[in-house]
Each structure stands twice: as structure tokens, then as C-alpha cells.
């Protein structure tokens, strides 16, 4: 086996790890789409907002400091405390629940029975709003997020895989953060499945996803379900925000990972949780391998920007409902 082969395998595994993170964002989309038929563009900005809030709480920043200083001429910036990571995460989760309640109370409730495109536009408006609001509240500079997740290459794996190759092979290089992220994503999916299969709320959730009107007629409160779903999407955004934030800092580009999750959704189907996972893995591996084999040597690189979309597009032409999506039945 040549070193090139092992290098390819390393790219493959790294692609899988990235794919897990894509799946994580895509999961948030799928949950909301299934239960309320809303294509939530704000999912990425929710991740950014969650990460910003987490950093802000951890470092004890004064919210709206810049605004307060501008209006009153004061010089406040920090409270001066430093919260432990776990407490800050719990508080941020609380903030995401409050956000879910506000979204339901002030946006969704007024947009019942509107066409899908209007709801979609409303979430884009929400994305703009939260982006500005997050920056206003915590400042727009790039922040470092550290909740104690190990980072850098994992030496254990590197040392213990070195024997596979020849002289010029030093073992697989994997980022510890990616491994942690993959484990957490797996746990999250598992707990989601358990939640939706074995709890009362979970059953109600699936009922709403199946048929809104039938669910209403047996006494399930749609509004409560919406709050629950948006809160779960908020938690997922928080986890995604922590992972991506630890990896590349908390900054605006974090909200763009939502765009990366869209081809994952197309590939896996908008309504399928396993689809989101498998789609994420396919996209993650696909774009890394394409860049490695074709993009970088022949096309000048940076093909990761569009490859996922093209792959999903070609795929959809042959299977319009995605990998695991519900069969599309059309009637006049």
C-alpha cells in the first residue's frame, strides 16, 4: 500500500468527521421542517447566536455594552466574573428556550396558514434580525470559545496507526475536536430518537409531523409542540455552535454553515432524520475526496464551495424526493 492510499484514507476519515458536523446542523432543519413545515433558514444564525451568548456569559460581558456606552457615554464592558463552562452552557440553553417561546409567540402564531414561501421569508427576516441583535448584544469581533474540549491532532491515534503504512507513513492525523464532535452528534441523535420514540411529548411530536389537523383533533397543542421543537432546534444549534465555534472561533462565518447543511437536506430528504445523518456523511466525504482527487490538482481548488450543491442537484434529478424523503404523490 502506498502512502498516497493512506493519505486518501485520511482525507476520507476527515471527510466523515466534517460530515458529522454537517449532519448536526441539518438535523435542526429537519426537526423544524417535519413538525411545522417551516424551512428554517435561521438555523445557522441560531448556532452563531448560541455561541455568541455562550462566550458572552462565560466571560461575563455586559450585554449591549457598545450601545449603552454610545448613548450614556459610560465605559462598561465586563462584569468581571468568569462562569464555569457547564453553567454557561446550561444558561445558554435556557436562552434558546426563551428564544423558542418568543419565536412562537410573536412570529409563528401570526403566520399560521400562510404559504410556505412566506414562512421561509419570515425565517430569513429572523436570521437578519438575530444576526444584528447578536452583534449588538455581544459585539461583532471574533471571539475565542473554550469549553474544555481538547484540540489539535490526536497523538494516540497517530501513533497506533503508524504501523499500517510503510516508512513514509506516520499514522492518521485526526483532530481531537472532530472526534469529540462526532461522539456528541451520535449521542444527540440517539437521545433524539429515544425522546421521540419513548416519551409522551415525543409521540405528540411525531403525531404533529404526520398530520397537523389529526393531531389537533386528538387534543395535542400545536403551539406547545412548536415551542418544544424550536427549543430542540435551539439545543442542536447550541451544540453545533460550540463545535464549530471551538474549531474556528465565534464569528459571522459561523452562520454560513447553515448553507452547507442545505445540500445535505436535499440529498437526505427534508423530512428524514436518518437522511440528514447519511446525507451529511456523503456530502462531507464527497467534497473532501473531490477536492483531493480532482478539485485541487485539476480545477484550481476551492471546489468545496459548490461541489455539495452540484452533487445534490444531480442526485435530485434522478430521485426528486431525496434519499429517504417521503414519496411525492401529486393529485389535481
Amino acid at each position, binding site marked *: 500500500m502506498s502512502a498516497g492510499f493512506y493519505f486518501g484514507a485520511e482525507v476520507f476519515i476527515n471527510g466523515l468527521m466534517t460530515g458529522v458536523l454537517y449532519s448536526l446542523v441539518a438535523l435542526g432543519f429537519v426537526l423544524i421542517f417535519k413538525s411545522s413545515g417551516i424551512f428554517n433558514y435561521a438555523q445557522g444564525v441560531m448556532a452563531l447566536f448560541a455561541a455568541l451568548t455562550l462566550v458572552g456569559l462565560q466571560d461575563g460581558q455586559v450585554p449591549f455594552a457598545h*450601545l449603552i456606552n454610545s448613548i450614556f457615554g459610560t465605559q462598561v464592558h465586563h462584569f468581571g466574573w468568569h462562569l464555569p463552562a457547564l453553567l454557561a452552557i446550561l444558561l445558554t440553553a435556557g436562552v434558546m428556550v426563551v428564544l423558542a417561546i418568543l419565536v412562537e409567540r410573536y412570529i409563528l402564531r401570526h403566520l399560521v396558514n400562510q404559504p410556505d414561501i412566506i414562512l421561509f421569508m419570515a425565517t430569513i427576516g429572523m436570521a*437578519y434580525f438575530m444576526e444584528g441583535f447578536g452583534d449588538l448584544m455581544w459585539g461583532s469581533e471574533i471571539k475565542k470559545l473554550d469549553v474544555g474540549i481538547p484540540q489539535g491532532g490526536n497523538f494516540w491515534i497517530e501513533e497506533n496507526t503508524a504501523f499500517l503504512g510503510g516508512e513514509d507513513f506516520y499514522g492518521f492525523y485526526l483532530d481531537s475536536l472532530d472526534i469529540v464532535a462526532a461522539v456528541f452528534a451520535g449521542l444527540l441523535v440517539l437521545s433524539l430518537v429515544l425522546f421521540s420514540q419513548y416519551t409522551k411529548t415525543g409521540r405528540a411530536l411525531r403525531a404533529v409531523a404526520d398530520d397537523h389537523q389529526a393531531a389537533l383533533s386528538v387534543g395535542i397543542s400545536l403551539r406547545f409542540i412548536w415551542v418544544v421543537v424550536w427549543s430542540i432546534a435551539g439545543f442542536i444549534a447550541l451544540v453545533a455552535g460550540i463545535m464549530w465555534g471551538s474549531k474556528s472561533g465565534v464569528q459571522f462565518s459561523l452562520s454560513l454553515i447553515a448553507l452547507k447543511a442545505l445540500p445535505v437536506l436535499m440529498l437526505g430528504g427534508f423530512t428524514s432524520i436518518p437522511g440528514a445523518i447519511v446525507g451529511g456523511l456523503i456530502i462531507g466525504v464527497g467534497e473532501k475526496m473531490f477536492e483531493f482527487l480532482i478539485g485541487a490538482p485539476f480545477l484550481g481548488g476551492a471546489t468545496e464551495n459548490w461541489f455539495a450543491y452540484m452533487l445534490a442537484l444531480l442526485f435530485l434529478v434522478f430521485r426528486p424526493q431525496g434519499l429517504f424523503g417521503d414519496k411525492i404523490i401529486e393529485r389535481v
Partner: protein
Amino acid sequence: MFYREAGDFKTSYADDSQTFPIKFDRYRYWAVLAFAFLVVPFIINDYWLNAVVLPFLIYSVAAIGLNILTGYCGQVSLGSGGFMAVGAYACYKFMTSFPGMDIFSVILLSGFVTAAVGILFGLPSLRIKGFYLAVATLAAQFFLVWLFNKVPWFYNYSASGQINAPERTVFGYAVTGAETQAWAVYLVALIFVVVLAVVARNLTRGSLGRKWMAIRDMDIAAEIIGVNPMTAKLSAFAISSFYVGISGAMFFVLYLGAVEVGEAFGISKSFIILFMVIIGGLGSIFGSFAGAAFMVLMPVLLKNIMVGQLGWATDLAAHFEFVIVGGLIIVFLILEPHGLAQLWRLAKEKLRLWPFPH
């Protein structure tokens, strides 16, 4: 009182099928045109041209284009930014390869090039529907921007990767390049906008527009009564891209002059144009203008108030702008999901009855 059909008797078919059947509408239309062509060129200056008027005119064309596709034919597209880039780069290639060509044919030709690209990316719409299609059009957005960044032929191997508009004149007056005069640029843009708007208005009233609307309302039913979905969808994609391409070409040669593709034609441009269409009103030419005016004027206004009047830092104002734009979009969708055009329709109903409310 002012706005009524009563007493306005039509005596020929041409009268009956004219664009504005109501007298008040017709007079208002001519008055607006007269004001735009005869008054504005004499009072316009560089600040008003570049901050307000030119973006408004150019975005109107893009909004009409997207409205044809999304509002009339029901195919949501998030690739408008990419198609604008095609228009701009086609325009640049034509201008540098054929220096003798005049600016009007260059911009028109760029529109045709964009239409061809639009048909190509419209092909999946025959299989994919709804949000799947919306996401699929993002492929066009990212792929096209990447293409113009990575293939040096498109920017003539310039070191900076930018494209710059060479100088072109119309009747001896420079309209592109560094030495332009506000009124000349304005008139070129205005001619395009007026002609394209009239064409769009009549296209959407005719058989093609009715086919689009049939496809939008229910594509399978439309197919059964004999509308060919392939020609209807692809023609919508072609004509829509033609408009968006022309607006991209104008955005490049008349407005910016120098373009870096990722910055000028990124994904945010697609969203802004979609906002214009939604806020203005889906399926309305007037709505495209109203939406463009709203989205161009509001940031200028907000900036003037916050930076000019209150004296806040610009980054603070920029964040506030996001909050306010986002908030307004949500409020708008809740209060009037059919957009500004619907408000205008309601106003007309009121005018028809006024001063007797029953």
C-alpha cells in the same frame, strides 16, 4: 371619484385591451414617465444618482426578472446573484473583445447570454419542485461565483481578479468609466428600465403570462389543460435570467464600474432581490418597483438618521440596520403577506368609492 371606470366607454378592441384601462391610471403613468424623462435629468446630481436613483432602477429590473420567475411562474430562485454575475462578466467580455460595440447592444447581448445560462440551470426545475428547487438554484449561485473567481479568462488574466468597465460613450457623452455625468448615466438606465418594464407587463398579460400563472397555481392541472410545462418553465427561466442579467450588466458598467465577483454578486444579493419581490408583492410589476424602492431607500434613511442625526458609530448603526431590516420584514409579512402591491390595490379600491364609502 378620481379613480373610476364609469363613463369611460371603450369603442374598439384596442381601447379595451390597453395596458391601463382606467383613465386615471393612464394619466398617472404618462405623468410619471414625463417627470422621469423631462424633470429628473436636470435636477439629478452624483449623490442622488449613486445613493438612491441608480440602485433603485437597476434593482427594479432584477426584481421584475425574479418576479417573473417566482411571482408569475412559482419557481423560487436563490440564484439571482449568480445570474447577475453572468450578466456583468458577459458584458465585460463583450466590451473588451469588441471595442466598437455600443453600450446598448452590449447590455442586451449580456442579457441573452444570461438567458442561455438560465435555461441550463432551469432544466432541473422540470424534475424538482418547491424548496428542493430553491436549494438547487443555490448551486447556480455558488458554482457561477466560483467559476468567475477561478477561470482567469473571464477577467482577462488581470492581476487583481477584478473587472473594470472601459469607457463608452452615447452621442459623445461618457456613460461608463471614470468621466461620466449623472444625467447621462441616469437616462441610459431609465431607458432600459422603462422598455423592460413595459415588455414585462405585456408579457405577463398575454398568453405566455397566463401559462406561467397556470403552472404556478397548479402545475399538474395546467399540464392536463394543455400547457406544456417544459416550455412554460424554461421560458420563465430564460426571460427571468434575461432581466436579471441585464440588471447585472448595468450594475457593473453603470453603477460600480469595478467588480470583484464574490463581493458584488454574493449570496446576499440573491436574498436582497428576493426580499424586494416579496415585500413589493409576488406577481406584480408595480410591486417589483415598490419593493426595490423600499429596500434601497430604507438603509440610506436608517444610516442618515443613526450616523447623521444621532452620531453613533458606523458599526453600531450597521448592526441596528440588520435588526431593523429583519424586524421590518417579519412585521411586513405578518401584516401584509401580499406586499406593497396589495396595499396599492386596497388604496385603489378606496379611491374608487371615495367620497361615498358604500
